[in-house]
């Protein structure tokens, strides 16, 4: 199955996330990850949705049927900056501490909490780098882990701001 990345700008209304997710569920599309957050424009939220689907055209058209969806860009083939953050809590015994500290440096990760038997590491990077980091760190014994899912932005001048879409509509 092909993996597609969609950047979706929506009006920041209650229920809009629910509408989008519900559409995916009932049409049988698989969401690999979905992140929503505020944008530079008040009233406009942005989602990065990673979808597993051979053909994403229907997904896009169905999403556009939602009244609050402003703009959908399929950025799968575009040059993008892709970022994801992970928090990992490791079970740490004294003998491994030094090794872990060295690894976090290699991955430019940060140790954000240290306790008697645990350590929390924050790491940010492209999805592949995050995968890689988790693989490397796993043997030390992961107690808890949480990935944010990816956020994506097209490099260079391409891409859309919320304000530009709202202005267009107001014309």
């Amino acid at each position, binding site marked *: 199955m092909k993996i597609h990345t969609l950047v979706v700008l929506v009006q920041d209304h209650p229920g809009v996330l629910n509408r989008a997710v519900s559409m995916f569920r*009932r049409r049988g599309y698989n969401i690999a990850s979905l992140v929503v957050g505020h944008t530079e424009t008040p009233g406009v939220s942005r989602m990065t949705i990673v979808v597993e689907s051979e053909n994403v055209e229907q997904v896009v058209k169905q999403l*556009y049927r*939602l*009244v609050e*969806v402003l703009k959908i860009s399929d950025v799968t083939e575009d040059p993008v900056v892709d970022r994801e953050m992970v928090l990992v809590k490791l079970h740490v015994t004294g003998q491994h501490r030094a090794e872990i500290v060295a690894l976090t440096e290699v991955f430019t990760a940060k140790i954000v909490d240290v306790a008697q038997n645990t350590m929390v590491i924050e790491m940010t990077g492209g999805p592949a780098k995050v995968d890689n980091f988790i693989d490397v760190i796993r043997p030390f014994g992961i107690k808890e882990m949480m990935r944010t899912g990816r956020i994506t932005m097209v490099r260079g001048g391409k891409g859309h701001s919320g304000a530009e879409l709202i202005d*267009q509509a*107001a014309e």
Partner: protein
Amino acid sequence: MSEKRTGAQILCEALIMNGVDTMFGIPGGAIMPFYHAMWEYRSDLRHILCRHEQGAGHAAEGFARSTGRIGVCIGTSGPGTTNLVTPIADAWMDSTPMLAICGQVSSTVLGKDAFQETDITGITMPITKHNYLVKNINDIAYVVKEAIHIATTGRYGPVLVDITKDALQASAVPDYSKKIFLPGYRPTVTGSKKQIKAALSLMLKSKKPVLMIGNGVMMSDASAEIRVFAERYKIPVITTLHALGAFPEDHDLSLGMPGMHGWVHVNRAIQEADFLMNIGGRFDDRVTGKASTFAPIAKIVHVDIDPSEIGKNIEVEIPIVGDARIVTLSLLEEEPEEKLVAEFHKNAAEWLTYIRELQTKHQHKQQYLNRPDTSTMMPHDVYAALTKQMNTRGNYRVVTDVGQHQMWAAQLLDWYKPRTHITSGGAGTMGFAVPAALGVAVAHPEDTVWAIAGDGGFQMTNQEMIVVIQENIKNMKIAIINNGFLGMVRQWQELFEGKRYSGTPLTSPNFQMLAEAYGWTGITVESVDQIDAAIDRAYATDGPVLIDFRVEREVNVFPMVPQNKSIGEMITE
């Protein structure tokens, strides 16, 4: 308008300002403030009290489908609104412009499982074009405007507005002037000129063209334009279930209905066509049969106002996103070379002659050629008599329920005018006919409105008959095609399940007596020779009449394409 009003008064005024004059509903706790207020506005805002919210919803649909205007239904919180779910789903499937107004518990207790609290916006999210939960009186006027705008533009559909009781009870100075602001909602109505040109030149290159029209033609009132287009190019026209009447069936170019219970010659024409232009139809599986086998030779042009319909079920050569009427007008603006047109006319004429030959070999429109040979009363006899009477008396509209009687009506009655055939197509909702016909009768007091229902579906919503009496509606008649079975299911059991009639034989009350109990005139017809007199009497009676036609029990609707088979493989007897 600088005086304070209650939220409920604002709701009434907003509805009136946005063109609403008729509503169907049932009151209850949460929606009571609205009922309290609507009394003051009753000369401009007619409320018709139904007996079940499902009835109110279907009545609103009948009103909407027969007029093209928004149909409005009302339910109170909890069960009142869950009862609206079926008609909302029905309106969603058939792109019917509908506004559902729901009472909700007060915002102070919302989310606390208060008495009669139901998350109706959550429940209806997948079956509405959009929905709102209004908790603030200051949003009411704008939301009503926006909701009606959304329901009646682009691809029409149901919109639900859920309003909390405290918002209806609060008071504020209304502001009706706020302009609609929907940055994410800008339906494309004008088709791309380039695509339209390309579609026409593709058409002119073809030798076996067909034009298929669907619900979009009805909803956009494009019948006249379609007719001009068809006549200009002499292209044969296929009308889907929801387009029956959008092109007159007595026209030389009319082929009739395609699909599962369409005519053999129509399905054959589709399978042999080298060009198919679908305007306003969505290639529903009941039309296409097994989609991968549909119109294998044809180059397909698909015109639809909803981009998500194009390429969903059937791959197309040329997509055109736009309103059926506006696109047809653009098609008419094109002026192709006369030589090309003359050549096209010649080929289309030969093609049509060929299709007409197929038609004589197979099923005909005429009832008797399709009628099994027995002396008992066949459904076909009833339809033949109804056709004759409707044609001579004129001004008829027919609302059908779901099942065999629905398909016979589509096949055997004559459809000449738009919005005269109204049925539940996409959802196939039994119980649609009686309340929807009530809505049609209210909207068209000048016409005779026939509800044609099966003995099964009739019993799902017949309680609405009393509304006809209470509202003094004179122009509604009901014909029950009473076959003692859930007939359409029985037909499948007979054909595909070795005649195991599990859960399909149906005992019914005496429908004539039931009608009389409601204050209707009731008539029972048991043999062919009684049919005409009964219909005569129905027409002669100034008031609602029900006729119970006790037809032969095990009759099948033919032709038929078995589910998921190619429409080229029809069973004809």
